[in-house]
């Protein structure tokens, strides 16, 4: 698409992140930077730690070790003057999370609220916008994800693709600095997947900073500035789409991509 973002300031910096669940290591020494306006796509087989990495960024999972900066601010706590680590309170963590939009694999729309209310809820209650304004903006966002006319439907009345687009609008409504997509199309059939990917493509065109975990390699190649490949909790290779898809260096990346080669499908 357009030129790289190497001159843009770093928005997200992840350094030496470790996370274990019981005896399994979900993340091992993961480091990654995302610049403002950059679109980063993480690929890798299931259980490779991609989702865990995403969930660690907004502290839905608390990392065991390592650090995450968003726009120069430490996530999940801070160091006092004497070097002591001070865990963020629930309120501070909530404030930090407002800058990170998250789209889940299973949509996770608020089941008791209409599409419009799902989108307007955050701005109204968290950003303290007047209700009328929050709802007007929510309408615009729903139109933007091609859901005008569906405002008053409940999640159960929408298709999976529609639900996921509402979820994207809900995250955008908070005007986040960074959008995280955690396998947003894995629960959808190909037709619905297309609806969702189209919306994501439009966001990419608008220079939204995005970090996407997906199995849609075509989307990754088309949209990403940077692609990272994960295996067993490690980020084994990072590069441009051309580097990763056309000339992968690491044997694991080659093996993974071979499964998706035209002959393989």
């Amino acid at each position, binding site marked *: 698409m357009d030129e790289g973002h190497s001159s843009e300031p770093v928005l997200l910096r992840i350094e030496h992140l470790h996370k274990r669940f019981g005896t399994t290591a979900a993340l091992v020494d993961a480091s990654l930077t995302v610049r403002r306006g950059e679109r980063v796509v993480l690929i890798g087989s299931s259980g490779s730690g991609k989702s865990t990495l995403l969930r660690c960024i*907004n502290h*839905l999972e608390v990392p065991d070790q390592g650090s995450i900066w968003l726009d120069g601010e430490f996530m999940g706590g801070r160091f006092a003057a004497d070097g002591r680590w001070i865990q963020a309170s*629930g*309120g501070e963590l*909530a*404030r*930090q*999370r*407002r*800058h*990170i*939009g*998250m789209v*889940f694999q*299973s949509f*996770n*729309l*608020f*089941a*008791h609220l209409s599409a419009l209310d799902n989108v307007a*809820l*955050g701005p109204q*209650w*968290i950003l303290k916008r007047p209700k009328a304004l929050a709802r007007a903006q929510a309408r615009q966002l729903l139109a933007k994800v091609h859901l005008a006319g569906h405002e008053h439907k*409940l999640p*159960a*009345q929408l298709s999976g693709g529609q639900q996921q687009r509402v*979820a994207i609008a*809900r*995250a955008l409504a*908070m005007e986040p600095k960074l959008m995280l997509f955690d396998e947003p199309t894995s629960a959808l059939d190909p037709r619905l997947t297309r609806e969702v990917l189209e919306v994501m493509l439009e966001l990419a065109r608008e220079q939204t900073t995005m970090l996407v975990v997906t199995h849609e390699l075509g989307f990754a190649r088309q949209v990403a500035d940077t692609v990272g490949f994960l295996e067993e909790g490690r980020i084994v290779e990072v590069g441009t789409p051309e580097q990763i898809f056309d000339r992968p260096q690491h044997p694991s990346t080659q093996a993974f991509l071979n499964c998706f080669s035209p002959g393989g499908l």
Partner: protein
Amino acid sequence: MGEILPRLLRALATTIQISVLALLLGTVFGLLLGIARVIGPRLFYPVIDGYIFVVRSTPFALQVYAAFFLLPRAGIDLPLFVVGVLALLFNSVGYQIEIVRPALESVDKEQREAADSLGMTRWLAMWLVILPQAARRMVPPLTNELANLVKASSVLSVIAVYELTRAGHAIIASSYKFAEVLILVAALYFVTIQLLSWGAAYLERRIFTYRSGQPI
């Protein structure tokens, strides 16, 4: 029998009044304590658990006597009706916390995560996301709780609250028509409690339909 029934019906009205009052007041405290037990400071947990243990491990009759003896001793002189409601309230809250808590915990973890990811504090998430979804799951057990309260309120007769059991007792004492009175009293309780249990079962089915994905 003709003059007994109206008296018993008036007493039944008192029984229902006491039970409904205890249920509604109990729901206020049950919600507050149930929410505190789920997302409140950990310091509260043993206190709330201790309260539940005391309520469930002592006979309700003892709780009634305790209210009857201790409130006046603490200088609080209240009409017996109010003492009865308070005793029933003390008891019911212990059970209602255990209605509220599982309902809150039954809301999918993903809903909490979505609220977290938007940057809601846990109290805001509780108020906007968890509680509205849990509330409808509390309705059937709370209806059932009302049936239990109607049953339990009969114990208030031991401190001379003039509800259905007490009224029956008084009529027997003055008329010796114990068979007629007991049959009527039993029938009135049975019908009231049965209606409430059916209501609870009906609501349970309704909620179940909602949860299976049908639009409300």
